[in-house]
């Protein structure tokens, strides 16, 4: 069965400080939004894939990588891939910026809740 994806407008580019995460609730999903030093914006589910979980929004951002604030896992913001030798996948969602407005697209059925 096909269902359309959902698009959320989450604010203006300036609402997001460089390299400092921010929490946005889009529907039932809690997102951590990051703006890297080159100005690009990324959206990740605000839940660490580490077995002990925890938030991501407060992590340190270096280049396109996020360091999980509680467990120091290194996460690629572009793909959500956890860097070796840790393994795992953070959930990332596509972001578009048009005319300074930031939008995130969530898949129709998000199976994991916070």
């Amino acid at each position, binding site marked *: 069965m096909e269902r359309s994806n959902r698009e959320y407008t989450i604010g203006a580019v300036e609402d997001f*400080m460089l390299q400092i995460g921010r929490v946005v609730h889009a529907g039932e999903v809690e997102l951590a939004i990051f703006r890297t030093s080159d100005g690009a914006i990324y959206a990740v589910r605000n839940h660490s894939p580490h077995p002990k979980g925890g938030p991501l929004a407060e992590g340190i951002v*270096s280049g396109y990588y996020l360091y999980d604030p509680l467990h120091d896992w290194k996460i690629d913001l572009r793909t959500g891939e956890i*860097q070796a030798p840790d393994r795992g996948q953070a959930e990332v969602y596509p972001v578009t910026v048009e005319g300074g407005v930031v939008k995130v697209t969530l898949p129709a059925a998000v199976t994991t809740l916070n």
Partner: protein
Amino acid sequence: MAAEREKLVLIGNGMAGVGTIEQILKLGGAYDISVFGSEPHPNYNRIMLSYVLEGSKSIEDIILNDLGWYEDNHITLHTGTTVTRIDDQNKLILTDNGLAVPYDKAIIATGSNSFILPVPGSTKDGVVGFRDIADCDAMLAAAKQYRTAAVIGGGLLGLEAAKGLVNLGMDVTVVHLLEDLMERQLDRTASSMLQAELTRQGVRFAMGKQTVELTGEERVTGLRFSDGSVLPAEFVVMAVGIKPNVQLAKDSGITVNRGIVVDDYMQTSMADVYSVGECTEHRGTCYGLVAPLFEQGMVLAKHLSGVQTPGYEGSVVATKLKISGVDVFSAGEFTETPEHTVISAKDEWKRTYKKILLKNNVIVGAVLFGDVTESANLQKLVKNSTEMTNEIYDEVMGTSCCGGGGAKKGMSVEAMADEEIVCGCNGVTKKAIVDAVTENGFTTVDEIKACTGATRSCGGCKPVVEQILQFVLGDSFQQSAKQGICSCTSLSRDEIVAEITAKGLRTTKEVMHVLDWKQAEGCSKCRPAVNYYLGMIYPDTHEDEKESRFVNERMSANIQKDGTYTVIPRMYGGVTTPEDLKRIADVSLKYDVKVVKVTGGQRLDLIGVKKEDVPKVWEELDMPSGYGYAKSLRTVKTCVGSQFCRFGTQDSMGMGAMLERKYERLDMPAKFKMAVNGCPRNCAESCTKDIGIVGNDGGWEVFIGGNGGIKPRIADAFCKVKSDEELVEVCSAVIQYYRETGNYLERTSEWVERMGLEHIQTVVMGNDDNRKELAARIDFALAQVSDPWRKMLDDKNTRTALFEETQV
């Protein structure tokens, strides 16, 4: 829809079972997985219950897989549910609450139960085993209410329980049937050394006593022994052994001996039903330690995931007691018989003991007490039934000269199979460690720990991890181990600081660019460090980089595990006023603070403030921040002093408040604590502070480098001064010298040991000009600081970006 996957049911949500599931997930085994556990908790590290009892870990810390993990891996978890029978006719798992769940494959991993002595009175209130969180909670609760405890059983568990209860303030006697403690692991010599050491640590012993009855009405009041003597006890822990938990297997008609009988692929007598862990019996042996259970789990996981594997052949077990300051180790055979050749060395002054047993020149067992550095090596030698040679002798008995030993050790890890488990507690294989080193360029045990988990629990595997590191890095080991503050650079702290000053670098970005960082924007280790060094070098011009700060410092509040924050107002010298207390009470009520706690540093924690309320709480408190989160001065603890105390010779409250006002807010390499006492009775405990000050009749005495935290250290006497002015100048100079030379995150306890007390004394006390210059530099830096909350409240943008969440 995806194709139907086979249903795998795990019975027993413990270490062996969940370890197996983790391996299956890693190997990509395609199953729909359900897990049943009798306990109400997710999977936790049972080994670490000893640390929970001892107080160094909380229950939260020992959770291995939280509920999110089950969810993320699509595993259905039934906690608080006991499986009562496996119906193999209908292929159903039946539970005590009436569930009937179909399975294709099932794993029984029901562990063991505490063995409770079948003597009259053993069911009275106040009698527990030591097995799970509930037992641990019962002990923690008992220690609050009762004074005297008895632990029956002088084995590993009994001794850990006893030490935990002593730490909780109870008066504890270990009752042991035999004359020797840990008689199944230690020989008489090691055992008596152990008893002497534990006696020094406050544990009492009643040896050679057989308990025949527990006395009391509803609740236990004491023990009666076979010789007629009695021991009063308000609380009793039974730690006499464990019994494989085989009830379910028996009730389901599976073959059971002492444990559930399995073959080399962990298959039970029932088709499609497997068993791992303490409940199993493999080739006649039931294991009660984690390492063998992980080895079993690994074989089973491969078998179930369709990966070729040799069968499980049994394990050599080694034991390590987890009591701080008591190092004992044993592996293989330890009681000497005429067949054995015995090599032993006992040193009564250093309180160490080493014994190695040979049979036909093959190393078959070893016992170590006091110094266990050779434990990993010996364990391997025993496991591989190695023949004793001159080289090995020199190595393990510590008689070799430099050189030979290292190479030999390298070879023993080289010979280790990739899949061999190095860290038993966390199930980390040799390969995982090698990969961590080769793929990430790691050079330290800490880095390996952070990413693989090896050495994270009991620490017993650390020597082997080090050896693997050394083996993989080869010649570059020495060199690279000394290098770099993190993997982004090969420069040391001192080199970085020197380059910053020489080249006039101003921002972390610039530092990383000019000094050729491997990762352009650094990592979570070097960014905060470089930000600190820049602030220390340019106190007036460096713009603090919020994005390079750890969460707590960035938010100027302590994050708690539930995502709420703790707010701590300043209370200079631990003194407050009724007005301030009233305001704190009003704000706490208004913002629904969960707990108001008095901290060890004499101030109030307002715990459980919602993230978005934090700025409002500060605004309404209108008090300076206590910097409970910061790498800077936390508190100056004071005693009552001459203002009120009948012994006081100096005004400790006044001096403490003054010092706290003077040094607050300034960044330091790590957190910093002080104390001021009015007289040598030392009621504010200055011996465990970074700077401790003790008043005497003619002035003050200064102590430095104390620490009461993870690595306790008693402060060193630094100097005596006559006037208050001198005191302040000395404190200023010491703090500034620490700021200028300390590694980021290095506490003064480590700093004093690295720099040498005498060196610091020479710098600060040896030369008046030096001291005055240091003091002037800190005063300059202090002139630049301001309260973060004032700034935050005025800066709407930062405040919104950090504390407000958006809902769309």
